[in-house]
């Protein structure tokens, strides 16, 4: 297959020339998935923490709900969000369909349960008496939570990395609610699918390669943060 060789060559050429169309798609990918990952973390980490440290009625149900969310097929999420955002759907008046915001919503719904579940694991893997010990040292509930999060930093950063990875890899849902509109909602994943469908394999490979590079860079930054925490200085 000569495609791979040609594809790689084309990809490198586009990257080096900083082709504006390609850059635009890459930047949009970073914006949409970065924002979705951020929101997922803001929602998911406190949720995972609360599930790990608090006992309250309905906790079991909420844990199951999060686990279901993790296993939910993303394409179903895309369908659900579409149904909500269609003109004649319940949220149709907000006119969010076929905008980047719709994609952010879908990606959050897909990534947040993963972040919550992994955060839960990270906190739960600490000694189970640690919350008690922190309270015994005079911490308020809030202070104890902050300390637990700090102590579970390694696991929590893994949760963030997983959340971002999930958000940025999403294709089906992003396509369904975004419409893959040129310059507006076309991101690296949907652009790759588009070019494959057209038979432009070289361009598809270059998008794929750029996506890999992008994900690698973000994960590398987060990993540096994670490992910095390991040295125990703060």
């Amino acid at each position: 297959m000569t495609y791979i060789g040609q594809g790689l060559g084309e990809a490198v050429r586009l990257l080096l020339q900083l082709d504006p169309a390609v850059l635009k798609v890459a930047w949009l990918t970073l914006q949409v998935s970065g924002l979705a990952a951020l929101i997922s973390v803001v929602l998911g980490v406190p949720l995972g923490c609360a599930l790990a440290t608090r006992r309250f009625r309905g906790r079991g149900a909420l844990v199951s709900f999060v686990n279901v969310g993790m296993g939910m097929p993303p394409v179903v999420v895309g369908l659900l969000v579409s149904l909500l955002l269609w003109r004649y759907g319940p949220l149709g008046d907000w006119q969010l369909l076929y905008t980047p915001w719709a994609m952010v919503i879908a990606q959050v719904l897909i990534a947040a349960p993963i972040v919550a579940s992994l955060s839960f694991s990270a906190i739960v893997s600490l000694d189970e008496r640690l919350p008690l010990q922190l309270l015994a040292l005079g911490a308020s509930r809030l202070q104890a939570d902050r300390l637990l999060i700090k102590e579970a930093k390694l696991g929590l950063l893994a949760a963030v990395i997983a959340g971002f990875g999930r958000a940025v890899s999403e294709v089906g849902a992003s396509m369904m609610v975004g419409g893959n509109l040129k310059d507006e909602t076309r991101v690296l994943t949907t652009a790759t699918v588009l070019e494959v469908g057209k038979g432009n394999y070289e361009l598809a490979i270059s998008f794929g390669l750029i996506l890999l590079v992008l994900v690698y860079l973000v994960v590398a930054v987060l990993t540096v943060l994670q490992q910095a925490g390991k040295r125990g200085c703060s």
Partner: protein
Amino acid sequence: MMAKAVELAGVRVARGERTVLAVEALAVEQGEMVAVVGPNGAGKSTLLAAIGLLLPVAAGQVRLFGEHDDPLALRRRCALVLQDGLFLTGSVRQNVALPLSLRGLRGAAAARKVGQALELFNLGHLAARPVQRLSGGERQRVNLARALVTDPEILLLDEPFSSLDKSARTHLLQELAAIIRQRGLTAFLVSHHFEEAAWFAERIVMLAEGRIVQQGTLAEVVGQPLNEAVARLVGYDNLLACTLAADKKTVLLGDKLPVAAAALPDGLAADRRICAFGAEAVQIGLLPSSACCALGEGVVKKIVPGIHGAIVQLDCGGVGLKARLSSGTRLDEGAKTPVWLQSGALRWVYGGTKGAE
């Protein structure tokens, strides 16, 4: 009249459907040292956590220093020391400083207190070391330093020395007891080892299955154990049910061994049917050392060696007894030997709940 340091009233702690702790009343004065003793699962740790306002109570009230309005503030006047110190990633100094920073105390004033606490337990040279790299004994010292750095008024010690070897344990316990007395702290010690508890505290609280079965001074608890559980906890080796023989002058130990009723303290009564005595009270050999009753001949079943002499398990007339064998005396399993009982060493186990409420 100073408010009592700790008061529990009608306190019940539940885990799911089960009640794990039910204390009707417990009152401890300021400066008292209390030992909490009981078998595994008795609820000792739960009791300490309840006193320290660290868990929600399903019923009842816990008052510290007569107050109960601001749990956080009251909690901050206590300190809990667990069996294995749980620390956050960081150096010894950082961990000891944590309770202070939680209370908003930082900077030079905090550094001074941290230094004092470290000095108290000879940890100055370890201040910068990561906690993870300390030995068990050193970690417990840091644990104690961390507990005392905030000058708590109530100290809760949950088997703090269980994972240390005997000499380290004894040493630290003595140090700690001295500090507690010097500062006039109210202290609770949970221990598996009755001797430790007895040495440490003026008052002993015995817990079994979430309830207080007896509390009192050492003499009270040892002299008048209220039930078998307490007697076992206190360390009596032999516990035998007794009945009155047909002639009304002989008591049958273990329902089999006859002993003159007159030789027993207090005589047999409805609420005193179980007698308890230590292995020292049972003598074997030809010449008993002091006033004894003869129990007849016994067969040696098993010999368990120890530093104070071996414990010999005997079968005497169908009743299992434990005797102490003085070092130097040789005996083989299966040997037959006369058995004597120092009746003065007998104690009755009282039925009922005397001293517990």
